[in-house]
């Protein structure tokens, strides 16, 4: 993962637990608490260890941590660095999700080694659609829930999201119902 992701985990932890909390998380994860450089690539294992340590430190399950992180990512991290890009991807949640791959194509220019997930949308009816998520990484489906919730807040669109039984070739299938 790129340093941008690990740095977002750091910011999320510092927001809740302060710098000493972050130092404890790093100690538990067995990594230095010096920080991360956004454009540097770090081993995926480091991010997984961090999530595990945050889970213990905050008394949350890893799934809850990933969901909280997904929401934080949209609300703060992406907003901080790539608000312009987010704006181009749509003016509603549905439009944004449909344009996600297009946005990732831009991001891949900057983060050349990025292995971005692939998203597609199947409409089921007005304000009701299914988000299909494919990824080479395992166990990050809860983060998608957080990302969608964060986007819904960004577009000020109340939604309900449920994870459906997965389909072959997909890491997660989610039904989104707009209120």
């Amino acid at each position, binding site marked *: 993962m790129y*340093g*941008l992701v690990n*740095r977002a985990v750091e910011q999320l932890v510092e927001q809740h637990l302060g710098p000493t909390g972050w130092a404890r998380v790093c100690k538990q994860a067995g990594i230095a*608490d*010096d*920080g*991360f*450089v*956004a*454009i*540097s690539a770090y081993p995926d294992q480091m991010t997984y260890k961090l999530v595990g340590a945050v889970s213990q430190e905050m008394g949350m399950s890893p799934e809850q941590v990933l969901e909280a992180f997904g929401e934080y990512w949209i609300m703060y991290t992406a907003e*901080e*660095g*790539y608000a*312009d*890009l987010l*704006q*181009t991807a749509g003016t509603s949640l549905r439009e944004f999700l449909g344009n996600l791959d*297009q946005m990732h*194509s*831009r*991001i891949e*220019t*900057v*983060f050349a080694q990025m292995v971005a997930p692939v998203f597609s949308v199947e409409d089921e009816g007005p304000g009701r659609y299914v988000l299909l998520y494919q990824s080479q990484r395992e166990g990050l489906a809860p983060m998608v829930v957080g990302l969608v919730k964060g986007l819904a807040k960004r577009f000020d669109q109340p939604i309900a999201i449920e994870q459906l039984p997965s389909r072959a070739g997909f890491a997660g299938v989610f039904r989104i119902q707009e209120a």
Partner: protein
Amino acid sequence: MIHLTEAELAQAFPFYLALNPEGQIYKAGVSLCKAFPSLAAGQYFEDCFAIVRPKVATVQELAAQHDVALVVQARQQGALRLRGNILVRAEGLLLLLSPVLTSSEEMQAAGLGMGDFAFHDASGDMLLMHRTNQMSLADANRLASRLRNKSKQLDTVMRLSPDGLAYFGADGVLNYANPSFQRLLGLSTEQLDHLQRRDFEVWLQTAQVPACPSLAQMLDTHLPLHLSFNVPYRRVIELQGATADEEGGVVLYLRDITAEVEANRLKTEFLTMAAHELRTPLASIRGFSELLVSRPVPAAMQQDMLATINRQSVNMTELIEDLLSLSKLDELTRDKLKLANHDLRELLEMAVSSSFAGADDFLVTRDYQVEQCLVQVDRHVMLKLFSSLFSNVIKFSPEHKQVDLQLRPQMRGDAAGVLLSIRDHGIGMKPEQLEHAFERFYRADHSGHQPGTGLGLAMSKDIVRLHAGDIALDSRPAAGVTVSIWLPQSSSAVSACPTEHCY
């Protein structure tokens, strides 16, 4: 031949500009119009934009320069620059432009967003790259700042550490040594300057006794080395080392273990001597008791034997009691003492009364040059000290039975204190005896004529030290012994007043 519809052209080149042969604008891309809302058909290009490149004065001249890059600058709208190609067509010039932007802020100032660029236009990507680089630079600066802070913290820790630390880089040159490293090895700053590892090894071999294995051996075996130095003072240093990094740099760690080694040596010596001192009376007891058990012994001889057994068992009891006292003293720390303010004169008098009770022929003189002498001491422990010292006085003064006690004020630096002298007129000690007098089990008289354990003065020294004082001996053969004890006075003590109290 590829033809584009107007919509396709607008999608592919959202910043295009179409000019008629007179140089008037008659069409413009949607994104260009967004950046220049006042742009209108019929306006002359040169009224809106200045041609930066190529170096031509009029739009008409551009037609002849269609194979070069075109750079224009808006006369308004923040002087936004655009760059692109010139296409010469029958209906005029078609300028395929794109804004020259170096940051997201500039893009926003121009009223543009990422969606205003064609997908093939890398301008947006460049801005993202620029933004990411800015973020990464901030991250790197933050990281460097944290590392600098950590470095400072570590530097402080290492500077204050009583243990020595040094780092030899992969090139074999000393990169860092903390003050303790220099102090423990007794090296000068000049010696440390650009010190090579191989020179350091040579120095180690010559400076320490006995010779130690090489550093390389130590790094291989991971076993610490013990270095013994005699100059400038005797000390034992434990040296450990480890490879510090992938380049092959080496960290050396030094710890002064002189006290530990000395404590171990004393412990072994003490156990050996204690065993020896116990074995001597025990052998006597066992020998005589075996004789008494195994064969008939005349009554008179029997009485002698029993008396010897009794005397030796008393000696053993005394020795064991002294050993127990010593053991308690070893465990005793200043905070465990029952300290209270006592008048040293009263304590002395109590000890004199009990110690000289059976020695009526002893003359005790007093020269107390202090009116009241408050010291903060453990009464019980202090009485034990005086009792032990008076016992020696009696033991080693067979003829001239006199002891002179003197108390006088004495400053030690800024600390007010009192000096107690106990001077006897007994057999005294030789200089070589004096040298070992405070050692445990040391007995000046090895003949066995004088009973004793050889622990009295060692315990006296411990007791005085526990009370933050010091003790010294002065003696010459046949001229008696003077024991001088200095103790700090309590802060509430009354100031000294020279008064003669001689009896």
